[in-house]
């Protein structure tokens, strides 16, 4: 029985990380070191905060050992151990004590099943966990420059295999979309000219990066489109193509508006047109500034340009002048001439400036006159049309003038008649119009109702989409869990200790049952015996009473009978005493057995030995203390 318990305990200890040797298979073989380590590991699992401060190994010094033992005992009490515990439990412990402590701790361990379900599952999850663990381990290592790296850095931080993440656009037949798909030329190009993806790189180093980038881009684009289509696209009731084209148009419009609003504030100022352009130039300049500096130098700055320009000009001027002038001209003459030239140029410049001013003023004036002319033209045109109308009316009036009265009457009747006719026509038209308008409204109503219907259906579709999404997610998760459980099941040891345990438990239970049956049998035997004893005692009593009576009757007559009566009484008394004694003996024997058991348990606890050991420890600590004190004094 106890071996079974020990095996379970040892298994549990191994699981929390204690290194128990293979040949250790019972608590009896536990050393103090092993016990301390096991207990510490258990406590760490049960309460990481508490166990963090405990050392899993025993130090050599007595007082240090004592401290470790005491802190361990305290920790055990903290996690709820009720039994007797002290530092000696760990150092000189008896088997039952250790067993009860370990049983308590193992029971306290959190269930493993809870731990397992919290983690993601599936074969890929197992792989991912392994990868994550590896990466974590690598990240824990500090980065060091390549030339001082230790062997353990080699596999992760060696410079040789590292490449910068440089991507290139790829072209592959399946990723391009749109109308070009159907073009024959495109197909031909793909079949005959397009190199395979692996041959599209200038350097092999960028291949993986490019592929990863391409894949991520496509994936995210597809996901984004999917999400957008399900949230907004469906509600817009357009086909995907229409939706895309409308979105494109919207974006373009927005960009246009942005550009216009950005351009507007500056157009108010005097440099209305040039400002946005110069802004653009600034932007371009800033781009160019980030280019390598040698490039700029090659191009030459504005300053160098002007310098070059002025120098060459002067040189040319000098060259032009030299043939005319003699060689003995002084530098003063040159200066004088330059000054003259300068003043002439200045005058010219001023002339030009004033010209510009004049022209600007002229332009302003012309603009004003232009406005005036336009205005006048418009007014004249309007006046003309008005006059023409008037003219026509007047012409007709003149035509009708000769017989004015008559014509007026005629005209009036004509007007009235046509008014009547028009009203008549209007009422006829109304007969047609009203039903048509009503029909229109009716149809519109139906339409809007259908609209409502369809939007409701759309929202249903949307919710269905969401449900499908959630369900697929769930299904996926469950599939993964299933796979992971399967792999875990496969990875489990085939001997299935669990079933062995159950079998053992069942066996034990059946044993107990058998024992119980035996006990009940013995109990019933005992009861029968008791019954027999009782009946015999009754019989004896009755027989004695009868005999006593008979003998007592005869004893009055016969002397010998009297004697025998005396004997009888004596016999009866002795027998009673005898029975009493036997019963007493039984009681005492039972007490003796109890005491013996107690002695045995006490012996098992090795109390005396322990006390002796504790005394020894005490002495050792005192010695150590004395030595330390002496050292302190010496120091």
């Amino acid at each position, binding site marked *: 029985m106890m071996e079974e318990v020990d095996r379970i305990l040892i298994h549990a200890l191994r699981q929390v990380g204690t290194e128990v040797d293979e040949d250790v298979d019972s608590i009896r073989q536990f050393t103090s070191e092993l016990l301390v380590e096991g207990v510490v590991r258990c406590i760490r699992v049960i309460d990481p905060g508490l166990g963090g401060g405990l050392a899993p190994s025993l130090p050599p010094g007595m007082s240090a050992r004592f401290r470790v033992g005491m802190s361990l005992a305290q920790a055990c009490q903290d996690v709820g151990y009720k039994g007797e515990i002290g530092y000696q439990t760990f150092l000189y412990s008896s088997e039952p004590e250790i067993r009860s402590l370990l049983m308590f701790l193992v029971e306290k361990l959190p269930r493993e099943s809870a731990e397992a379900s919290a983690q993601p599952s599936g074969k890929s999850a197992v792989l991912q966990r392994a990868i994550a663990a590896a990466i974590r381990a690598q990240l824990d290592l500090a980065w060091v420059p390549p030339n001082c790296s230790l062997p353990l850095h080699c596999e992760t931080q060696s410079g040789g295999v590292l490449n910068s993440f440089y991507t290139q656009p790829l072209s592959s037949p399946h990723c391009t979309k749109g109308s070009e798909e159907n073009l024959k030329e495109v197909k031909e190009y793909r079949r005959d000219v397009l190199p395979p993806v692996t041959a599209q790189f200038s350097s092999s180093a960028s291949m993986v990066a490019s592929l990863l980038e391409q894949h991520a881009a496509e994936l995210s684009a597809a996901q984004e489109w999917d999400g957008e289509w399900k949230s907004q696209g469906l509600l817009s009731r357009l086909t995907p193509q229409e939706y895309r084209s409308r979105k494109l148009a919207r974006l373009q419009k927005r960009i246009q508006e942005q550009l216009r*609003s950005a351009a*507007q504030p500056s*157009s*108010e*100022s*005097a440099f209305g047109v040039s400002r946005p352009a110069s802004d653009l130039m600034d932007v371009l300049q800033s781009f160019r500034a980030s280019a390598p500096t040698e490039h700029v130098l090659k191009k030459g700055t504005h300053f160098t340009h002007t310098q070059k320009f002025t120098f060459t000009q002067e040189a040319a001027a000098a060259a032009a002048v030299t043939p005319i002038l003699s060689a003995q001209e002084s530098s003063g003459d040159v200066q004088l001439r330059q000054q003259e030239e300068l003043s002439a140029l200045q005058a010219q410049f001023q002339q030009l400036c004033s010209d510009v001013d004049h022209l600007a003023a002229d332009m*302003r*004036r012309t603009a*004003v*006159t232009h*406005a*005036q*002319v*336009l*205005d*006048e033209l*418009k*007014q004249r045109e*309007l006046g003309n049309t008005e006059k023409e109308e008037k003219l026509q009316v007047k012409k007709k009036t003149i035509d009708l003038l000769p017989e004015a009265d008559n014509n007026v009457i005629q005209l009036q009747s004509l*007007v*009235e008649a046509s*008014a009547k006719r*028009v*009203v008549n026509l*209007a*009422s006829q038209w*109304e007969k047609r*119009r*009203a039903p048509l*308008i*009503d029909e*229109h*409204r009716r149809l*519109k*109503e139906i339409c*809007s109702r259908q609209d409502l219907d369809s939007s409701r259906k759309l929202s249903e579709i949307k919710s269905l989409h969401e449900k499908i999404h959630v369900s697929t997610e769930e299904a996926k998760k469950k599939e993964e869990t299933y796979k992971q459980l399967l792999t875990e099941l496969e990875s489990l040891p085939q001997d299935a200790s669990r079933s062995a345990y159950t079998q053992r438990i069942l066996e034990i239970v059946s044993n107990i049952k058998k024992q119980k049956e035996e006990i009940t049998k013995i109990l019933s035997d005992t009861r029968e015996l008791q019954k027999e004893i009782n009946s015999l005692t009754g019989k004896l009593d009755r027989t004695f009473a009868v005999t006593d009576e008979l003998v007592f009757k005869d004893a009055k007559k016969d002397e010998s009978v009297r004697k025998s009566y005396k004997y009888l009484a004596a016999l009866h008394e002795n027998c009673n005493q005898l029975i009493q004694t036997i019963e007493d003996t039984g009681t005492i024997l039972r007490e003796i057995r109890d005491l013996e058991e107690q002695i045995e348990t006490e012996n098992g606890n090795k109390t005396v030995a322990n006390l002796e050991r504790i005394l020894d420890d005490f002495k050792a600590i005192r010695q150590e203390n004395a030595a330390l004190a002496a050292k302190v004094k010496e120091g």
Partner: protein
Amino acid sequence: MATTEAQWMLSVGLIEKDVNGDTLWVWCYPSVGSDLRQVLLRKCCLTQDSRHFGTFVFGQFSRTWYYISTAEVQEPTALAKVTHFSVVVTSKDFNPEKYAALSRILCRMYIKHGSPVEMMEAYITVLTKGVCPSDENGPFLIKDYDVRKAYLTGSVKDVVSQFGMEAIILYTALMLKKRIVVHHPRIEALLEFTRALPALVWHRKDWSILHPYVHLAEPELQDLKTCPGYVAGFVDPEVSNRPDLFDVFVSLPDGVITVSQSAKDAMAMGKLHKDIGHAIVRSAEDAEGSDSRLIKDISTKTKEVLATLAALASECEDSKVTLEALKRRHFPPATENFLFHLAAAEQLLRI
């Protein structure tokens, strides 16, 4: 006379908003072009979602004035599916009061009969006879509504009292035929304010420069741009970001007048303006004086200026002013500038 004025009426139309929330152009006589129809649908405020409907609005689009009366159908009538409707009258002349009265009568008729035939009959009697029977206040007589009355209805006094000395900017802009844009979120306030402005240049009596209710829609803006100078009202605050539309911007809610950068040159002001401005403010402060009094005062001032210009013109050949002639008079530069531009506006400049 009544008949000629009546002939300025161009058409009558009907717009309905039904229980589906649709706004339909349902009927018109004799005809309305599709461009104008779009504009009218935009103006009739039934197309806007707000529950607040202006009862009467008017405006101008390509030299056609439109007057729109809107009514709600409350008691059950023959118009079962109609919640609101607008009667639109278009005309060549500016006379809001006349057409407000007429369109209101037409509205009542439509509610009463539920059919546009009676409405059209009334319209035709107005067109042919200048009279229309009405349930209230006696018959509608077209000759009750003189155009001068319409011109004088807007209150210049309110304009001057609101802006004080700054009113001179409006005066100058109008004199020089500049483009004025007025913004106010409420259409009623906009109509009230803008119609008073042309009275500042009474000598022209030109109300065709008035576009009291313009939307920022392309056809309307195109129409606006064909006019050399105008007074345009916008309810959309976005108009303040369209400097291509105005030389002077008036924000009525804030009571602020801004002159745009491009017009600052032409609108430079000097002592002459100060004098006129003071005269205007003084006249407006006179509690006794009516609007017509104020208009007359302003008009007198204007005439003085124009007289100067006319005198100048008579000196020159073919009665036209030249810049040189102006310069010979040695006016202060601001005055000279103003007179030069004014001469252009009055077509007195020699080309």
